[in-house]
C-alpha cells in the first residue's frame, strides 16, 4: 500500500507491501531510514531545523522539526526491533531559492542539522540528494529499502 507522509509527519512500516512516500519537499528534508535485516523502515518530512523557534508547536507536532522529529523516529524504529548498526539513512530535499539573499537558508540549515544528528547517533548517510532549486518527491520501498526520488519529471534511485 502507498502510505503518504504529510508535511511535518512520519510513518514507519514493516509490511513488505508498503511504499512510504512524501511529496513536494522544497526546503524541507525527507529522511528515509531502513533496517535491511528486519525489513523495517521509516520516512519523515521535517520543515524546520530546530524546535526552539516554537517549543509549544514542537510538543504538538514533533515531526515539524529535525531536532525533535528525527530522534523520535529513531527511537520508534529501535522499539520495533531495528538495530542501529544496520540502519541505512538516505536524505533528500533541502532545496534553496535561486537567491534568497542569505536571509533564510532553511534548506541548508535543515540539511546541516540532519547530518549532525545522524552523526551523533552513529548512523551514516549512505546517499543524499539535497540542495538546488528543485522540489522533490521521495519514496521508500519497505520490501528492499529502495529509495526513489522524483523531481522535475525525472525518476532515479537514491
Amino acid at each position, binding site marked *: 500500500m502507498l502510505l503518504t507522509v504529510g508535511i511535518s509527519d512520519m510513518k514507519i512500516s514493516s509490511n513488505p507491501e508498503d511504499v512510504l512516500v512524501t511529496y513536494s519537499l522544497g*526546503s524541507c528534508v525527507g529522511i528515509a531510514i531502513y533496517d535491511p535485516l528486519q525489513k523495517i523502515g521509516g520516512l519523515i518530512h521535517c520543515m524546520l531545523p530546530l524546535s526552539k523557534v516554537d517549543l509549544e508547536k514542537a510538543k504538538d507536532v514533533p515531526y*515539524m522539526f529535525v531536532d525533535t522529529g528525527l530522534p523520535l523516529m529513531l527511537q520508534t524504529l529501535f522499539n520495533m526491533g531495528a538495530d542501529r548498526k544496520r540502519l541505512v539513512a538516505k536524505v533528500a530535499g533541502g532545496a534553496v531559492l535561486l537567491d534568497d539573499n542569505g536571509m533564510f537558508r532553511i534548506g541548508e540549515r535543515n540539511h546541516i542539522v540532519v547530518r549532525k544528528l545522524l552523526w551523533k547517533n552513529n548512523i551514516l548517510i549512505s546517499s543524499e540528494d539535497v540542495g538546488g532549486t528543485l522540489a522533490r518527491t521521495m519514496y521508500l520501498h519497505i520490501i528492499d529499502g529502495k529509495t526513489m526520488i522524483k523531481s522535475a519529471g525525472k525518476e532515479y534511485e537514491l
Partner: protein
Amino acid sequence: MNSREKIIEKIKEIPAFPTNSASILNKINNPESHILDIAKEIETDPTLTANVLKLANSAYFAGHQTISTIREAVILLGINRIQQLIIATAIFPTAVKPLQGYDLPAGELIKHLIGTAIASELLGKELKGDVPPHTFTVGLLHDIGKIVLGTFIEIDPEPIIKKAYDERLSFEKAEKEILGIDHSEVGALLMQAWNFPNVLIQPVLYHHEPDKAPREYQLVTDYVHIASNLCLECGIGSGIDGLNYSNNINSIERLNIDMRTVESVICKLIGEINTFMENLKTGDIT
C-alpha cells in the same frame, strides 16, 4: 504574431470573471455603498451565497462561531473579508484544476494561492506591522497568470526550464525571454480585462520585482512577494519551476524580516491552511 502577442490575444478569450461577483466587488470598493445593501445583493445569488458561507465558516475566518447568513458574515467578518471570500470562490473552480504547463497536480495551485494569502497575513502579524486589507486578496490572485499560461495556452515548459537552469535565471525571467511575457504580467492583463482596481493589479504585476511597484502598492507587494516564496520553500504548490525564484533583499529590509520571523510563520502556516481548506474539497465550490 509573436508569442507575446498571441498570449495577449488569448487573454481576451478567457471566460469573464463571474458578472455578479464583479458587480458586487465594485460596490464593495465604492465608499458610498452600504454594507447591508451589499449583503442583500449577495443573497440574491444562491450559488455565491452558499460558497461564501462555506468559506466564511472555516475556522480561519469564523473561529468557533457559526455563520448562517450573509448579513451575519458581513457584520462578524467585515466587508474586507467578504471581498476576499468572493474572490476566493470565483477563482476556486479554475485554480483547483491541474496545471499542465507547470506540472502542478490538481489542488496545488489553489493551495499555493491560499497559502500565500495566509502567509502574508501571518507575516504581518508576526512583524506587528500594518497589513493593508488588499494583501490577502492579492495573495489569492498573484499567480493567476499561471492559469492562463498553464491551461489556456499550455505553454511548453521545457525551453523555459532549460533557459532558467542553464543561465541561472529566475523562472519568471526565463518565461519573459522565451515567451516575451511572464506569468505576473499575464495575470495583471487578465485582471485589467476583468476591470479589477489598480490596488489589486499592481502588486500582482510586480510580485517578483517589488522594487518596481509604485510606492503606494509596495507594502502589499513586499508581503506577497515574500509570502509566495515562503510557500514554495514549504513545498506548497511548487511545480516544475520549483524554488527557482529570488527573494528581493530590499523587500526583506523594508519589512524588517529576520530568520526567526520566517520560521515562526512557517510553524503556523500549514495548520492555518488546513483550517481554511478543511471544508473544501475539489468540486465543492462551483
